[in-house]
């Protein structure tokens, strides 16, 4: 790139064997043309940008235009990429849905009292204690009641309960009411 008009002229003369007049004529002509071309381009750009600004302002002023634009876009996408639904609706069928899939598999204490109260407590409700700890109240019973049965089960286990009438009852551990170590006030 030439640093100045004189350098450009000298370079033209040196590189192409032109006379000074020829070189100057070329430089003058190019500059004029370039200037006209540049000016035209800038004016064109200005016009285009002005149009864009006017369009965007009209969009900002009119919510319906925005919605219309979104609609057009969506329809364009639909035309371009739309295809038939691939999944099927199966009326009256819940597939392999299993309630147990929704239940957290955790260890729980199941306790049954002599008076016939039952509860389930997550083992996480209990904690280890450091030396000198006072322990936790694991369960509070009412009046004369006492703990009859206490065992750890998985929340998804089936609890078999045998009664003095010779029956055996089956209940899922997660169906047993969950209560904390001690009832909250």
């Amino acid at each position, binding site marked *: 790139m030439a640093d100045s008009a004189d350098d450009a002229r000298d370079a033209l003369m040196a590189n192409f064997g032109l006379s000074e007049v020829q070189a100057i004529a070329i430089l003058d002509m190019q500059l004029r043309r370039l200037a006209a071309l540049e000016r035209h381009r800038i004016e064109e750009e200005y016009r285009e940008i002005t149009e864009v600004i006017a369009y965007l302002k009209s969009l900002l002023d009119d919510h319906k235009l925005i919605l219309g634009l979104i609609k057009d876009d969506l329809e364009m996408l639909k035309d371009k990429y739309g295809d038939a639904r691939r999944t099927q609706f199966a009326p009256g069928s819940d597939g392999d849905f299993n309630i147990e899939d929704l239940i957290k598999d955790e260890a729980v204490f199941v306790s049954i009292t002599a008076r016939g109260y039952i509860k389930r407590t997550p083992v996480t409700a209990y904690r280890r204690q450091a030396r000198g700890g006072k322990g936790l109240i694991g369960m509070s019973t009412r009046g004369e009641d006492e703990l009859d049965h206490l065992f750890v089960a998985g929340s998804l286990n*089936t609890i078999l309960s*045998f009664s003095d009438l010779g029956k055996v009852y089956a209940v899922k551990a997660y169906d047993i009411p969950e209560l904390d170590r001690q009832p909250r006030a």
Partner: protein
Amino acid sequence: MTFPNWTDSQGRKSLMNVLPLSPEERITAALPVDDFDDGEYLIMITRLGKIKRGAGPLLPMCVPAV
């Protein structure tokens, strides 16, 4: 006629809300079962020294929960 308490004063549920027990019925033993696999048996021993092994599939013999 007596109605089981739904919950006691501390919020505990009566067994009767979970199992269809008759009023005087008591649970004598309870245990959790993970899988009802074939080839696994329940052994019961009574206070009077009788012992037996459960025969046949266990789960269908059970009374379902309430």
